């Protein structure tokens, strides 16, 4: 059975085609989010089908997730990103007990039971500190490509203390640090720690291992080590972290289809 998962996130739309019998991803696609969200979702789905050379009639079910999920008008149904990320990561790492997902504009902490069901979760979508947006702001301010932040942070010998709880004020703080002669690598390392601290605050006193890291920010290697330092536990980054939400949606689509079949 072939199913599709569309993760209409706040910064990008991710889509996958998944074959349930083999557990194989037939195709993946990602595109920046925009104003015409429904149209973008349709386009990315068409591209996905073309890439995999799959006729739409062969797709048993499409599940949409992410903030824009209700705008994906061709989806069979919608499921929240909490459930989808949990299922997607579980599919890739069956031993997972805690998921940290950091996206462009939000972050989530999801706790799972040993059998893989979501036990509870926490979300931060009201504050850019603790999201990828924070890193983007810093990259812009320091005029460094986002992809180079991690490597720069690795050079730090004394990460700067970033005390502001707000991205806007943190930017002011960065200007002050630069004016005071703090090397950019220490500022960048400090920002990684600040994001990690913010995310760890969502975990409270309940963090079971193993912890897996996913979402677009998981592509920045330094973030995993910053999280590991703050939480005092190893952090494993999942494969292709941008796609775990869409993968989970596709896996759940297959489960739903099996239940729906007579």
């Amino acid at each position, binding site marked *: 059975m072939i199913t599709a998962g569309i993760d209409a996130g706040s910064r990008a739309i991710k889509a996958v085609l998944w074959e349930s019998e083999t557990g194989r991803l037939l195709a993946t696609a990602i595109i920046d989010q925009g104003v015409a969200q429904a149209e973008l979702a349709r386009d990315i789905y068409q591209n996905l089908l073309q890439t995999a050379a799959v006729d739409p009639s062969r797709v048993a079910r499409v599940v949409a997730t992410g*903030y824009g999920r209700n705008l994906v008008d061709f989806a069979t149904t919608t499921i929240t990103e909490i459930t989808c990320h949990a299922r997607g990561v579980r599919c890739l790492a069956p031993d997972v007990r805690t998921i940290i997902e950091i996206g462009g504009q939000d972050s989530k902490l999801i706790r799972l039971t040993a059998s893989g069901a*979501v036990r509870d979760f926490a979300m931060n979508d009201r504050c850019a500190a603790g999201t990828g947006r924070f890193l983007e702001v810093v990259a812009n301010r320091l005029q460094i490509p986002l992809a180079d932040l991690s490597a720069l942070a690795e050079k730090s010998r004394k990460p700067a203390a970033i005390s502001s709880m707000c991205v806007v004020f943190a930017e002011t703080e960065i200007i002050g640090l630069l004016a005071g002669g703090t090397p950019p690598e220490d500022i960048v390392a400090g920002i990684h720690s600040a994001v990690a601290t913010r995310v760890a605050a969502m975990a409270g006193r309940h963090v079971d291992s193993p912890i897996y890291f996913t979402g677009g920010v998981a592509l920045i290697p330094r973030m995993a080590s910053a999280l590991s330092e703050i939480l005092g536990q190893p952090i494993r980054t999942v494969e292709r972290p941008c796609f775990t939400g869409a993968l989970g949606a596709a896996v759940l689509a297959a489960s739903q289809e099996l239940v729906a079949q007579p």
Partner: protein
Amino acid sequence: MSAAPRQISLDEWDDRYRELHASGLVEPAYGGPLRRHFEEGHDLRLRTLRFDNSAASLRLWNLLLTEEDRLRECRRQGRKLVGTMKDLGTVPVMAYAFPNLTAFYPDGAWWIPCVMEFSDGLLRIADSLGIDDSFCPVRAMLGAFLTEAHFPRPDLLVCSVGATCDDFSCIAQRLNGLGFPILWWEIPHRRPAESGEADFLMPGGMTLPMAQVGLVKSELARIQSAMEELAGERLAETMLAAGIRRANRVRRCLEELRRRVFMADQSPLPALELLIAEMMAIHFCSDQEQAAQALEELLVQVRARVESGQGFGSSSAARIYWVNPVSDLRVMNLLEDCGARLCGTDNMFCHALDLIPENLPPLDALAGMALMDPMVGSAAERAGRICQEMQAWRCEGLVISRIPGASHCAWEGQIIADLVHDRLDLPVVELEVPPVADAFQSSLRSRLEALVETIISRRTL
């Protein structure tokens, strides 16, 4: 006259109202179509809400949305108005023990910016007075006092201070400075009786230090004197005892209403109407007798629905316990849209829902109840009560609704969430709900839907 339970829009209420009238609906003086509050009262938020379609709920809404008219009528008739602030359920019991006093909660103005979708301008007035949005939305009260557009200037203003909300104290102090003199009374932070210290046993098993009860009793006696002066008559103990019995009529009704709503297989009353009904416990909508009658009619409706197995949503809806009232009423509809139902609430005034002991000297009983206020005790005690109720009402998840700017919400949410995790191992979601939350609908919906999905998946474990 009865119809299958359904949540209907303001437009649909027009037809439903005609149908009810055609079938012989008899309404109190404040009755009428719901639409008039939208058109004449500019209660714009009503067009976005979905309402219970029963005649009993129509009466409840009409009672709520005519309070301003009622207060003006009281003033015209020469009744004395007492603005009771912050204690949420104690002082009004005393005020209504006097035949010619009417009490109301100016704090209730916090919902005006929501109901009127900011067209009231009250928050702008508060801003101009230096009470900006870093304070709780109850700051709208300042604008309401200054414009007198929502209630007349009261003859007496009473406000509790001490172990109360910091925000509210600041707002009330500002009000006092604007020429609205306040009779302040002190409520101490509740503590357990120490070893060897005389204690006072409350129903439910909580023991209070006798010294604290004595302090609050002496404070209430000061308020009593001020009310006696205003009313022009002495408050005999028998009058106060009768006032307590009248308040208990409302509380008994609400106790059964909540139990039936929370425990029924299918919810017999939507979350929105339950929230409005619960609020009656603290303020009686400025008419204690009508509040009691409206609630009793609602209870009859709920009993009938439970007995006939009728209700809202699915019997498998996720059973949610809700902490703190929402600034935007629309969020209560959203809960049901997401596949959940309300099976427990703690709106910071659970002491106003508990029966006042009738076997104690009346002032002692009132003092004890004032000390049962969840806000004058520790957050851990409040969390303990929430856990007990969640178990009793078979709740599967908790929503903690934070009120932007409200100082009492800063940390208590985490304390409550931690205890619910530790004791009950149930999922918890925290929401922050501004007075008009339209821009946050998708975010709020995501959280509530994720909570419902989590609850449903946990059922199979």
